[in-house]
C-alpha cells in the first residue's frame, strides 16, 4: 500500500517541525508527548512536508491507520522516556527515529516542554551509555565481589609465597650455618694449638638462633591472623555504627594485640637480633620502609593526618606534636646506630690483624673481638627502644583521638600495611622473562 510505504519512510522529526509551527496557537502542552500529540492533532495541521494526508483536516479513515501507527510508536516512546532506566541514544536509522525526536535539542521541537527537552539533553550529554540508575548498582556489587575474590586470591598467594620464602630462608640459614661451623672449627683448632682454652658450647647458640628466627616467624604469622580477625571485627562495628562503648572494647583489644607483637619482638631480639633487623620476617615491600626492625611512627602519622579529618584545633596540635616528637626520637636513635656502626668498624680495623704467630697478637685479636661482641650486644637495646617508640606513639595517638577517630586510624593503619603485603605478593608473582 502506498500509504503504508509512505508511513514507513515517514520521519517523525519532520512531523514535529510541522506541528511545531502551529503550536503558538493556544495549545496547552504538558510534558507528555503523547498527550501533546493528541492535543495537537485536534488542531488544523497544514500539509507542509508531511505526507500524512492531502486534506487540511485530520485523518480520514484511510489516514486513521497511519495515525494509529504513529500514536502507538509515540506512546512506546513516552513509556521509554518515563522509565528512568534508559537514556535513548540518537542514531541515524529508522528504528531509532523516536530517539532522535527525544534527544533533539532543536528549539523547533516543541512537542515537549522545554524542561523536558533540557532534562533529556542532559541525560544525553551526561554519557552516551545505557547504564544509568538501576543497572549501575548491580555492576558495582559485581565489582565488589570481584574485588573481594581478587583480594582473597592475593592473600592466598601472599601466604603461600611467604611460607615458600620462609622455607627457603631456613634452608639457606642451615647451609650457611654449616659453612660457618666448619670455619670456626678450623679456627678453634688453630687457637687450641696455641694453648688458648676455648669452650665448645658455641654450637648450641647456633642452633638456638636458627630456632629463634623460625619461632618468631611462626609467632608473627599467627599474630597477623589474629590481627586480621580483630580488624574485621572493628570494621564491622564501625560500619554498623556501633556504640562508643563497644568500639572502645574492640580498640582496646587491638592495642593490646599490638603490645603483644612488641613483647614477641623483644624476646626474638634476645634470640636473634639480626633476624629482626634484616626484616626478613616482613614482606619485600614492607622491607622497603624498614627502620630499626619495624615501621617508622612518624611516617605512619603523616599518612593518617589526612584521613583523620575533621580534627579539632587541639587535636591537630596534638597530632603534629606527636609526629614531631616521634621524628626527633627516630633521628636520635638513628644517630646512636650510626655511632655504633662507626665504633664497631673502628674496633675491627684497629691494631695489627696480621700473622697469628705470636700470642700477643692473638690476645689483641681476642680482645678486639670481645669488644666488638659487646657492641653487637647493644643492638638489642636499639631495637627495644625503637619498638618502645612505636608502642608509645600508638598509645599517645589513641589518647589524642576520639573513640571513633581511633577506630578509623587503626583501620587505616592496617589497610596500609595490608596493601603493602598485597603489593609484595603481586611483585613476587610478577611474570619474568
Amino acid at each position, binding site marked *: 500500500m502506498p500509504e503504508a510505504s509512505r508511513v514507513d519512510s515517514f520521519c517523525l522529526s519532520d512531523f514535529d517541525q510541522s506541528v511545531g509551527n502551529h503550536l503558538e496557537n493556544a495549545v496547552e502542552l504538558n510534558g507528555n508527548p503523547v498527550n501533546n500529540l493528541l492535543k495537537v492533532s485536534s488542531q488544523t495541521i497544514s500539509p507542509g512536508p508531511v505526507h500524512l494526508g492531502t486534506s487540511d483536516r485530520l485523518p480520514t479513515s484511510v489516514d486513521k491507520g497511519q495515525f494509529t501507527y504513529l500514536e502507538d510508536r509515540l506512546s512506546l516512546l513516552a513509556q521509554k522516556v518515563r522509565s528512568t532506566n534508559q537514556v535513548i541514544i540518537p542514531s541515524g536509522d529508522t528504528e531509532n527515529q523516536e530517539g532522535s525526536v527525544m534527544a533533539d535539542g532543536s528549539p523547533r521541537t516543541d512537542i515537549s516542554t522545554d524542561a523536558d527537552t533540557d532534562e533529556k539533553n542532559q541525560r544525553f550529554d551526561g554519557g552516551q551509555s545505557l547504564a544509568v540508575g538501576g543497572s549501575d548498582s548491580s555492576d558495582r556489587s559485581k565489582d565488589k565481589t570481584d574485588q573481594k575474590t581478587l583480594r582473597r586470591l592475593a592473600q592466598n598467594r601472599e601466604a603461600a609465597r611467604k611460607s615458600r620464602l620462609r622455607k627457603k630462608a631456613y634452608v639457606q640459614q642451615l647451609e650457611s650455618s654449616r659453612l660457618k661451623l666448619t670455619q670456626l672449627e678450623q679456627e678453634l683448632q688453630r687457637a687450641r694449638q696455641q694453648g688458648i682454652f676455648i669452650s665448645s658450647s658455641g654450637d648450641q647458640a647456633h642452633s638456638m638462633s636458627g630456632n629463634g628466627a623460625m619461632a618468631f616467624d611462626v609467632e608473627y604469622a599467627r599474630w597477623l591472623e589474629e590481627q586480621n580477625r580483630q580488624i574485621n571485627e572493628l570494621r564491622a562495628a564501625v560500619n554498623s555504627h556501633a556504640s562508643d562503648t563497644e568500639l572502645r572494647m574492640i580498640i582496646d583489644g587491638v592495642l593490646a594485640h599490638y603490645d603483644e607483637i612488641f613483647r614477641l619482638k623483644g624476646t626474638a631480639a634476645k634470640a636473634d637480633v639480626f633476624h629482626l633487623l634484616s626484616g626478613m620476617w616482613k614482606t619485600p615491600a614492607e622491607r622497603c620502609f624498614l627502620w630499626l626492625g619495624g615501621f617508622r611512627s612518624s611516617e605512619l602519622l603523616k599518612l593518617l593526618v589526612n584521613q583523620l579529618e575533621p580534627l579539632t584545633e587541639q587535636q591537630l596540635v596534638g597530632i603534629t606534636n606527636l609526629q614531631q616528637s616521634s621524628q*626527633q*626520637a627516630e633521628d636520635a636513635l638513628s644517630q646512636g646506630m650510626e*655511632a655504633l656502626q662507626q*665504633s664497631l668498624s673502628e674496633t675491627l680495623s684497629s691494631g695489627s690483624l696480621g700473622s697469628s704467630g705470636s700470642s700477643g697478637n692473638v690476645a689483641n685479636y681476642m680482645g678486639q673481638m670481645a669488644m666488638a661482641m659487646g657492641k653487637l650486644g647493644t643492638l638489642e637495646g*636499639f631495637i627495644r*627502644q625503637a619498638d618502645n617508640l612505636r608502642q608509645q606513639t600508638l598509645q599517645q595517638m589513641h589518647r589524642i583521638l576520639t573513640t571513633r577517630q581511633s577506630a578509623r586510624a587503626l583501620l587505616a593503619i592496617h589497610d596500609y600495611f595490608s596493601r603493602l603485603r598485597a603489593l609484595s605478593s603481586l611483585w613476587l608473582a610478577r611474570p619474568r622473562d
Partner: protein
Amino acid sequence: MDRVRDLASKKAAVIFTKSSCCMCHSIKQLFYELGASPAVHELDKDSYGREMEWALRGLGCNPSVPAVFIGGKFVGSSKDVISLHVDGTLKQMLMDAKAIWF
C-alpha cells in the same frame, strides 16, 4: 650516691653516660635537638665511676646508663626518656626546670 646527687643538682639537665655507650649518644642527641645543653658525666672517665654506677642501679636505672636527671630529679633511662618525650612530658619537664625556653 652523694656524688651522683651532687652532680645532678648542678645543672637543669644532667646525663650520666659511658664513652662507649651508643644509646647514651642517642639520648644526648635528643636533648640537643630539644635545645637543652645537658651536663654529661662519663662514668668510665670518673674515678668514682664504679660507685656511681652502683648508685644509679640502686635508683632503678637499668641499664645504668644513660641515666637522666632533670631539675635534680631522677627521670630514668632511655626507655623512660623516650616514653616521656612521646607524650610531651619531657619537654614540659625541661621547661619547668628552665633547661629550655620553648
